[in-house]
């Protein structure tokens, strides 16, 4: 796994190494590495079209019930990570809900394939270490387009690494072929996420004059709302018309 991490951060460093002086628009958008980010974005789109979309279309042709089961199981596997981050953010009510969801869905929900917790009044909520860092006061830093993983920033990239390699409890169990377990799970996570947002993102791409900038804006707005735990954008933060 260390080899994969080194390769990943090496690619990031390579992408950032060739940066020209940022434009005023890039600085205003907090995207000083915009030229390099756009190159990574173009690479990601090519990789997606060649390797990812054919699999995604096959995945989407599976019965809805099967895909829902995969979606539920992946969310359930993330339960302990969500619980730990709720605790780190001192969100006791949400932490209790995350723990109760994990217990109910792992047992009655047959390992998380079914989601009896939601109708029982324990709805899902997301949480990750990037959000925890934000709650602790860390700024997002400059916008980054990560190879394979897409829109991010130093805070959220750090959060992803901590969630994946430190907080996730499967790191502490001996699993034969742990690398393939991690890789398979991350790939299924991507498939699940993309299959849910595929139509919406197609609409965004179709109506965009600059798809890269549209995604950057959508990522920022969505991420900020997630950090606010879904609360609406504070009125003071909205721009004047």
């Amino acid at each position, binding site marked *: 796994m260390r080899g994969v991490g080194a390769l990943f951060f090496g690619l990031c460093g390579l992408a950032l190494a060739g940066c020209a002086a940022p*434009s*005023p*628009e*890039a600085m*205003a*958008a907090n995207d000083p590495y915009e030229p390099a980010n756009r190159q990574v974005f173009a690479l990601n789109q090519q990789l997606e079209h060649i390797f990812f979309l054919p699999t995604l279309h096959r995945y989407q042709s599976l019965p809805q019930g099967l895909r829902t089961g995969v979606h539920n199981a992946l969310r359930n596997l993330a339960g302990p990570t969500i619980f730990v981050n709720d605790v780190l953010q001192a969100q006791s009510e949400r932490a209790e809900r995350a723990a109760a969801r994990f217990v109910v869905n792992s047992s009655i929900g047959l390992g998380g394939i079914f989601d009896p917790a*939601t*109708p029982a009044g324990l*709805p899902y*909520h*997301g949480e990750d270490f990037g959000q925890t860092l934000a709650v602790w006061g860390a700024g997002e830093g400059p916008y980054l387009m990560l190879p394979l993983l897409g829109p991010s920033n130093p805070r959220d990239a750090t959060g992803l690494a901590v969630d994946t390699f430190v907080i996730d409890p499967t790191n502490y169990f001996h699993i034969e072929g742990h690398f393939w377990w991690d890789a398979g799970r991350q790939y299924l996570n991507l498939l699940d996420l993309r299959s*849910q*947002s595929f139509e919406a993102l197609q*609409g965004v791409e*179709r*109506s*965009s*004059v*600059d*798809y*890269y*900038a*549209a995604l*950057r*804006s*959508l990522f920022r*707005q*969505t*991420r*900020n*709302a*997630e950090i606010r*735990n*879904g609360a*609406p*954008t504070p*009125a*003071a933060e*909205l*721009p004047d*018309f």
Partner: protein
Amino acid sequence: MLKPFALARRAVLAAGLLAATMTPALAADPAETFVSQNIQKGLALLNNKSLTTQQKRDQFEQFLLGLADVKRIADFTLGQYRRSAPPADVAAFEVAFQNYAVAVYQSYFSKYAGQTLKVVGSTQRAPTDYIVATQMIDPSDRSGQAPLEVDFRVRTDTAKPVLTDVALATSSGGQVWLSLTQRDQFVAFLGQNNGNVKLLITHLSDLAKQFKS
């Protein structure tokens, strides 16, 4: 969180205490009424099966232009280029943006044609600036999922209220404002193309044609 405010407001109105108890929160009612009445009309229009595609398109255009301050939104989406661009280019951009917005918004709202809109509350950002929170209720939905939350930004500094932005909730708990997203991409596009507003106009016109074809 907003719902109790809306209920309390109606109770106060019913008691005939409006004049005596007028507060800033109560003043949000015109924006809520505006959204409640007009958006429902738009959804009914898109759901009207007796209209041809062209009739629907024409009527939706009239509906949107009567509802939203498209010129104000267009100027906002140009960002800092609104001040530096030649006035003739800005005027041409406003026309191109209008065609683009009608085509794109019709496409967005068509997805919710069979649904009904429920106003759940509002907040007042400034004396003439409101955010009205709503939910799209799908009568045929049996999935048990929470309804889609849509916020509308309404300005009341003109003769009648006007819509200036729409925010859609995302499945991950996020929220996306459409005008803000458009401004971010238009400004980025202009930054990549030496501030050439004419090029942006061409691009928007092409996109509008694609959506209409």
